[in-house]
Each structure stands twice: as structure tokens, then as C-alpha cells.
């Protein structure tokens, strides 16, 4: 391979390194600091960042929990709470919670 040739590699590296250094101006630094001062303080930024990071960190656990709940729902059928909620939604006017509690 052409690039494995020692001489060619040296020449290419020499050409690669032959870049003029861009001088850093004070105006550039002032601009950077102006931008940074316009941002919230570094310590107070974390809540939104942390929140989104935490949400994604919890995503696999939430996915697993959802699958377990689905399996549970299929396996055990509708629970008492679901039946009560269903009764309430079907006839909210006549629904008396006390009747259910008293049997």
C-alpha cells in the first residue's frame, strides 16, 4: 500500500503538520466570554441536562416494566381496579362507590 511506504508517510506527515497557526485575538476571547455570560451559570444548567439524561437512563427499565405489566395483564386478566373503573366509565351517574365497598 502506498501509505505504508516510510518515505511517503514522512512526506505526508510533514505536509499535514505544515499548517499555519491561526493567531488567537483578544476580540475572539471577548466574544467567547460574552457568549458564555449569556448562558446560565454552569452549575445551574444541570437540571434540564440531568433530567433528560435520567429519562434516557431509565428507558430500559421502563420498557422492561411495561413488558412485565403487559404479561401480567394478559396472564391474570383485568384486576378489580380495572373492573371498578370500567363500571364507573360505563355508568358514572348510577355508580355508587359505597355499594361496591359494602358488597
Amino acid at each position, binding site marked *: 500500500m502506498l501509505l505504508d*511506504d516510510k518515505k511517503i508517510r514522512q*512526506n505526508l506527515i510533514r*505536509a*499535514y503538520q505544515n499548517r*499555519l497557526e491561526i493567531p488567537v485575538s483578544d476580540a475572539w*476571547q471577548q466574544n467567547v*466570554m460574552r457568549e458564555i455570560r449569556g448562558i446560565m*451559570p454552569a*452549575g445551574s444548567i444541570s437540571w434540564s441536562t440531568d433530567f433528560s439524561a435520567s429519562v434516557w437512563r431509565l428507558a430500559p427499565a421502563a420498557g422492561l416494566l411495561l413488558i412485565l405489566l403487559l404479561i401480567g395483564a394478559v396472564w391474570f386478566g383485568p384486576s378489580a381496579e380495572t373492573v371498578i373503573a370500567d363500571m364507573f366509565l360505563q355508568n358514572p351517574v348510577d355508580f355508587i362507590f359505597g355499594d361496591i365497598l359494602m358488597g
Partner: protein
Amino acid sequence: MTDIPGDNSDTTIIDRVLGGDINAFEHLVTKYRSHVFRTVGRHVPDGCVEETAQDTFIRTYLGLSGFSRRSGFKQWLTAIAIRASYDCLRRIYRSRETLFTDLTRNGEIDYEHLIADYSGNRHVENRRTAALKELLEAAMAQLKPPEKMVMELVYFEGFSHREAADLLGWSVANVKIRSYRGRKKLNTILKEIM
């Protein structure tokens, strides 16, 4: 810029910035701006260096609370600069205009001698290196950003695959694949030119 009495190590400055003293961040900018310009300048075109260096410091500021302090601040900053450069390369790649055919059509320059010879004469070498640099930049511009970035880090700057992977935040396997593809592609481009 505010004066920091006593210990003005990076850690002390970072603590002050996190404590709400935004102006203390300027100490870090002053201390590392040349390093960031050099790092960024090796990967992005001259016209993008200032913007990418600024982006690097803004990302650094934004991520300061997440700095683990296990590695040194300079190393962390370098990784941010490399990633900012990579993002800049991706933007440039999407809107690139230089075509490989522009290079191959130019029959006036003897690229074969340019790439393989070394005369020892300083003036000849300076001219030759400048022409070779132009050739290399045009050839490297044909590579996709991941391959270009890895080639620069591994082939031209001598980082190991592991070090390049740490800097870019990629897996070692990914770096090895990009490195292999980059070398192969650059080899083909240079062969076609010569």
C-alpha cells in the same frame, strides 16, 4: 478577568465557575486557547478554526458540572475540541464543493515526485511541502468525516486506536474499521492522482 488568589489550578478555577463566578472561566480560556486552536486547527479548515474553538469552550462551560476529574482537565478539553472539530467536518462535508475530478484534471503538477521525493534543499522542500499540503487537503476532503478524523488522529498524529477511540467517544472496533477504510480510500485517491 477576575484574579484568583492563591491556588489557581484548574480544579480551583472549575470550583469557582461552578460556584457562580462565570468570569473565572476566562482563566481557563486564556490558559488553553492556544492548545484548543492548535488541536482544532489540525482538523478543520482555517476559516472554521475560530468558530470551532469558540464552540469547544462553550461546550466545555456547559459540561463543566459533569467533568469527572478522573482525567485531567486538558485531556477532557482536548476530547471536546476533537468532537467539536468532527461536528464541524460533518457540516462541511454536507455542503462540500471540491471535487476529486478537479485534482485529477490538473496535469501540470508531478504528484508522484511530489509525494515520494525529498531533495534536502530547504527552498525546494518548502515549495514542495506547500504543494503536497494542498494535494493532501484535497484528497482528505474526499474522505467521509469519520474516516478523515480517524486518519488524522491515527495515521498523521500517531495516536493509538484506543487513544483515538477515547478522544472521539467511539468504540475501538469502530476506530479500527474507520482507520482501515480511510487508509484504503486515501491510498486509492492518491494512486489515481499520481
